[in-house]
């Protein structure tokens, strides 16, 4: 056991910090800083990927032969940490962390050549079409059907919670290609051009005034058979591969660290009878508890990244990161709301989130309550809190 990070990591951090300071456009940074949701503005995600790509940094976690960087896991951690700290936009997650890895791992050479360079360059927005209205937690029962007719699939069905579909160019979908076999085995992984005839997209108004989640209706959509990734019937396996591939991201560790710093800044700026709230015991107590939890979560993430040999199943360990990280997202944003007191009740139109309303109001208040409201989804998406607990009970203890 050696729990000291190497000194060369500091040099790496300084190098990344300087590069981001140079590259990140101020307006993009301002939008990210004010943003009301959990994800950046979709177009910023693409523009930022294009900027990062100039340095070859848009997909550093990919294998080198596909355009990734030969960095250690800890260097990748530092990279993400620095980007989040600098208020860089998130990347188009579906592209760089989901469909990209599936294509370079299971795709044909043609698919790799066709899609990977565009993903690296942020050319298209990719949306994820997994959940359906009747199948959320119980995803394996999905019913959207793709029937092979000649050289194309005819796709019919409905997807929901497809983040950013209204801004997206492409979608990666789980579809049922074989209704005859056991649920998981009839599912395939299909890439669909969202501008295809027969696709209707509806934005769903959300609790915080955003409408980034979408429903996607597919009505006799023709998709070239060459857009199926890997083997027919292996879609479920690929989706599980994705989850195992990204064990630590559900911790939202960089987000949690950054938003905790924001809590502290708000607590210094807001006052009660002239005293900063950060000096009051009741807020000090909440702040210290959250800081303790975030610190522990960061080390939980590092243990996974640095390949600790766990006594328990790795998927169960990953679920602990999701459980802790999602609850922290909520607790941190709840404290942001509470620090603003009655002022937190104001609804700022999402499109004006980067403006301070009038000099009467705290400078950075817009977007905070919206983020807190949106954070209620943190214990729902990507496997609910209850599903995660079930995974832990089963995989860690065989219950």
């Amino acid at each position, binding site marked *: 056991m050696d729990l000291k990070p190497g000194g060369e990591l500091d040099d790496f951090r300084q190098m990344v910090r300087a590069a981001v300071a140079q590259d990140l456009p101020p307006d993009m940074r301002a939008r990210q800083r004010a943003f009301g949701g959990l994800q950046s503005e979709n177009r910023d995600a693409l523009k930022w990927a294009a900027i990062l790509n100039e340095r070859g940094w848009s997909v550093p976690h990919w294998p080198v032969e596909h355009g990734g960087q030969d960095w250690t896991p800890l260097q990748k951690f530092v990279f993400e940490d620095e980007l989040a700290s600098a208020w860089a936009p998130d990347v188009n997650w579906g592209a760089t962390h989901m469909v990209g890895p599936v294509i370079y791992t299971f795709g044909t050479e043609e698919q790799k050549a066709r899609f990977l360079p565009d993903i690296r360059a942020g050319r298209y927005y990719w949306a994820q079409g997994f959940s359906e209205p009747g199948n959320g937690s119980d995803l394996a029962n999905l019913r959207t059907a793709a029937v092979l007719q000649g050289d194309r699939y005819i796709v019919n069905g409905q997807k929901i919670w497809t983040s950013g579909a209204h801004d997206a160019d492409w979608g990666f979908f789980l579809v049922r290609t074989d209704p005859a076999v056991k649920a998981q085995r009839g599912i395939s992984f299909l890439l669909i051009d969202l501008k295809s005839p027969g696709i209707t997209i509806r934005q769903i108004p959300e*609790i915080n005034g955003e409408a980034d989640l979408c429903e996607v209706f597919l009505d006799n959509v023709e998709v070239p058979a060459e857009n199926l990734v890997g083997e027919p019937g292996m879609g479920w396996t690929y989706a599980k591969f994705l989850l195992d591939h990204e064990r630590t991201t559900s911790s939202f560790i960089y987000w949690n660290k950054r938003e905790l710093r924001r809590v502290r800044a708000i607590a210094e700026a807001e006052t009660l009878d002239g005293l900063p709230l950060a000096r009051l015991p009741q807020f000090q107590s909440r702040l210290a508890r959250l800081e303790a939890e975030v610190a522990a979560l960061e080390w939980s993430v590092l243990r996974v990244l640095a390949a600790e040999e766990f006594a328990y199943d790795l998927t169960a360990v990953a679920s602990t990161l999701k459980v802790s990280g999602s609850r922290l997202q909520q607790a941190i944003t709840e404290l942001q709301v509470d620090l603003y007191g*009655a002022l937190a009740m104001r609804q700022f139109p999402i499109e004006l989130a980067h403006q301070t309303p009038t000099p009467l109001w705290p400078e950075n208040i817009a977007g905070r*309550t919206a983020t807190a409201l949106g954070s209620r989804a943190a214990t729902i998406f990507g496997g609910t809190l209850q599903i995660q607990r079930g995974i832990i009970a089963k995989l860690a203890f065989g219950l």
Partner: protein
Amino acid sequence: MDFNLSDMQRMLLDSAERLVGDRYSLEHRRALRDRQDGFDAGAWASFAELGWLALAVPEEKGGLGGSFDDVAVLMTAVGGRLVVDPLVSNAVIAPAILSDAPDAGLLAEIAAGERRVALAHDEPGERYGRGPRLTRLSRRGNGFALTGQKMLVLDAGSADTLIVTASIEGEDGTVLVRVDKNAANVTAEAYPLIDGTVAADIRFGAVDVTADAILVQAEHGQVVLEKSFDHGKIALMAQAVGSMEATLSICAAYLKERHQFGQAIGKFQALQHIMADMFVAAHQARSALYQSLSVAGGDGRARARAVSLAAITIGETSQFVSRNAIQLHGGYGVTDEYEVSHHYRRLLTLEKTYGDIDFHIRRIASLDAG
């Protein structure tokens, strides 16, 4: 002691549930929110007709002289359907301020549904401040000039008359003064809150105020204000209890109706236990409300302490219930298209109005300290 409703209260509750049950659908509320003033004039006329606006008004001022328990019964019903019309400002706060005041018929006009008021109290940089106001009345000619800045004036969107708290030249204490919202040199910037109501920041730039517009004199202002905020908080807490109980019904129905893994999700123990904990919380909340109602008519310390205790319990339980309601609904819970997200947002604003949990903890501590 009798915890069961009287015949009169039963009738009040039934008629309230009928009216708001028919009218306040999710679609209706979402449409109302898109209006700039967030106000439903037709509903307001019905409220006046049914006597809701006169319920807490004393008989000698033309009201029904109802008890605070009656008001709470009504408030639970409207809370259950998320009626966000300015009932607390007009049917609770206004009577608390004006019942003993020389109000030139203002309270009677409010009770008749002809006029609506908003209390303009909070000022920039405060956290639920109850002390001396920076907004002030200076003597000018036979009357006064009102100067100052108010923030977060609740229900300002639909109000035509403001009741403004201010210090007054030459006296200690706080006066409450009546100002026409459309008077010269009154500048309002209105904006929506997350529950769909409309509040405003309002600036008074040396506004002309006559001496007879002073509703409550400086020596009584503090006492009247504390009573008004406490009554307002109790009414909001009753709404919160109604909202929580409605949330329980919505969730129980959803757990039976939604199927995953081949069965109703209510069959999963993980969700049953959430539902059971929500029930425990809501039950405690109603008890806390009753505890505060038992001393609502009193004055001073005992009332303040009881209201603050209830505010802590109801603030915390309402967050617990409504957050879990969202969790039970999965992705649908975080959309604007399902009721539970509206209950959550409303309950969050109820917690943050007339003192949040932190305020009420501090108030108990300071009451206990002497």
